[in-house]
């Protein structure tokens, strides 16, 4: 009996030693791959940050309003943030490639899924960034036009345009990621529809005289009969 136990233990120990001996080189390979990945990720991060600095990306994100948001969230500058993102995505990607070397089938599936997800993540991030850039540009354009036309509540108009564009960009990004697609679509439709309805009611009730004047000016020759408020020619 005792002999059997010892034999089994020896066999188990032997098998464990064999398995460990088989795994050890793979673990070493994983460690080497991780080290190479770390170096590669650091180099990529440095290159990206240099390029972004050359392109004055921080100024671009300032214009887009992204810098302000990052500041409020106590996050680093957009150049640093993108650098870190590239570093971690690269390193993680390389480590996962290394994990493949371990030969664990379940892990290999997850690794493949992660790599399929990466392009979508990048597209989603780009959508949000360019959405913020567009929101900043168009809201500022609306603000300036409204101010120079003496339009009432220019900031409200500008803010509304900014919010709508950001919501649109975020919903597109979520759709790209495949996260809560139906919920986001429904939420966007409700918010956008509510805003348009609100504007229509507000304009219909509060601005019907304005609308009438506008239409009269547009479709009759009343414009030429109007007294001009400023008679000065700037040029």
């Amino acid at each position: 009996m005792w002999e059997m136990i010892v034999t089994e233990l020896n066999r188990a120990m032997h098998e464990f030693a064999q398995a460990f001996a088989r795994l050890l080189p793979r673990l070493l390979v994983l460690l080497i791959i991780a080290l190479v990945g770390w170096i590669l990720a650091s180099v990529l991060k440095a290159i990206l940050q240099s390029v972004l600095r050359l392109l004055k990306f921080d100024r671009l994100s300032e214009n887009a309003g992204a810098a302000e948001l990052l500041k409020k969230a106590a996050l680093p500058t957009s150049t640093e943030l993108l650098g870190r993102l590239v570093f971690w995505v690269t390193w993680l990607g390389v480590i996962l490639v290394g994990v493949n070397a371990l030969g664990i089938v379940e892990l290999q599936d997850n690794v493949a899924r992660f790599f399929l997800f990466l392009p979508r993540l990048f597209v989603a991030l780009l959508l949000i960034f360019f959405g913020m850039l567009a929101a900043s540009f168009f809201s500022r354009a609306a603000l300036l036009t409204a101010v120079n036309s003496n339009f009432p509540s220019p900031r409200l108009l500008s803010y509304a345009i900014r919010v709508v564009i950001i919501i649109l960009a975020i919903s597109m990004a979520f759709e790209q990621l495949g996260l809560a697609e139906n919920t986001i679509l429904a939420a966007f439709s409700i918010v956008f529809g509510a805003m348009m309805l609100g504007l229509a009611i507000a304009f219909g009730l509060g601005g019907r005289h304005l609308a009438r004047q506008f239409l009269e000016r547009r479709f009759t020759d009343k414009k030429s009969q109007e007294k001009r408020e400023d008679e000065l020619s700037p040029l």
Partner: protein
Amino acid sequence: MADESILSDELIRQLIAVGEVDILVGLPTYNNAKTVAQVVQAVRGGLLKYFPRDRVAILNADGGSKDDSPMLVQAASISDARNSGPLQTLRTLHCISTRYAGSPSAGSALRTIVSAADLLQAKACAIVSPESDTISPDWIDTLLRPIYRENFDFVTPVYRRNRFEGMLVTNFLYPMTRALYGWRIREPYPTEFSFSYRFGNQTLNSDFWHQDPGQNSPELCLTMAAIGGGYRLYQAFLGPKARVEQAAADLVVAMRHTVGTLFWSLAQNSTSWKDTTEIHALPSTGAEYEVTTDSVRVNRKRLHQMFCSGVAELEPVLSSILAQQTLLELKRLCTVVDDQFHYSDELWVRTVYEFAASYHRAVISPDHIVQALVPLFRGRVYTFLMDNRESSESEIEQHIESLCQTFERLKPYLLELWATGQGGS
């Protein structure tokens, strides 16, 4: 070799039929039926009276008018020839109308005329606005003689204006151009001007024709090219400036064409303006300035209100353009009652220079920078109106001269902003 691709085959055929000319008068039109016939008759009168022995031609570059402007140009030149009485030319006075390619733009029209002048080897070419209903035949002689007889390269006009007309010129374009480039050009954005063959030929290949400033305000680009290229400049007094009806919204467009183009040109000509220290007077004919003091109707209260609301509403935009101190002073101005409101020369010049530096650094979209200056310019207009309510012609000129000197005195500030990239807070 000049780029002639802008000229259509049909136009080239017509120009070849005309042959070489001594003088070309260019008339860019786009829906100017109201005034163009009168302008053509004056041009023709001027050519017959002052250049009867020379080979002359009129070229109308039209942007696709829907009111038959080109036909009116042709009709006016024929009817005038019949009724010209004692005025007879010894040669055929050609009048060509052409529809240039693309959408209507001042740049395409002028480039067509400059290209045609180059092809025709015209020694002198004058550009006349189709809206200048105050034009007389003498204008043609005044514009062309310095080029044709005295070998000048570029002639800019001086007009008689109402004291409150053209405030974008008197409060911005003239003083800033003068301070930066060192030439006392009263109308850097002329509607009438003339140039030599040499100038036209060398300017044809300039890059600005292909850029927005060259399309929207080629007149200012040509003036800048004349200054920057070291050409022989001349200034000629023409007479009363035609009054073009302007709506309030046109101020934004006018500022895009003037402020935007001048700011843009600073980066193009930075070597030229940075080293300029002396101010030169131009050789000239007639008065250097002339203003009338007729009263004009203007809503001053609205100007003041639009300045204050502009500063308040645009604060986030202005803070990225202006220095903190300048913005603080503007905000303080909004708190004073309108009869004590005074947008001083110094503050206005600092504002303009900070805007120019921000335009150069592209802190935000260039067009947005120009638009953000509009309410501030309204404040400056308000102050100019209040300061000169009772002023005589010479007092108004003194005020403009004082503003010019402030622009000159503060030029080192612009150089500093330009070099250090400082500005918005």
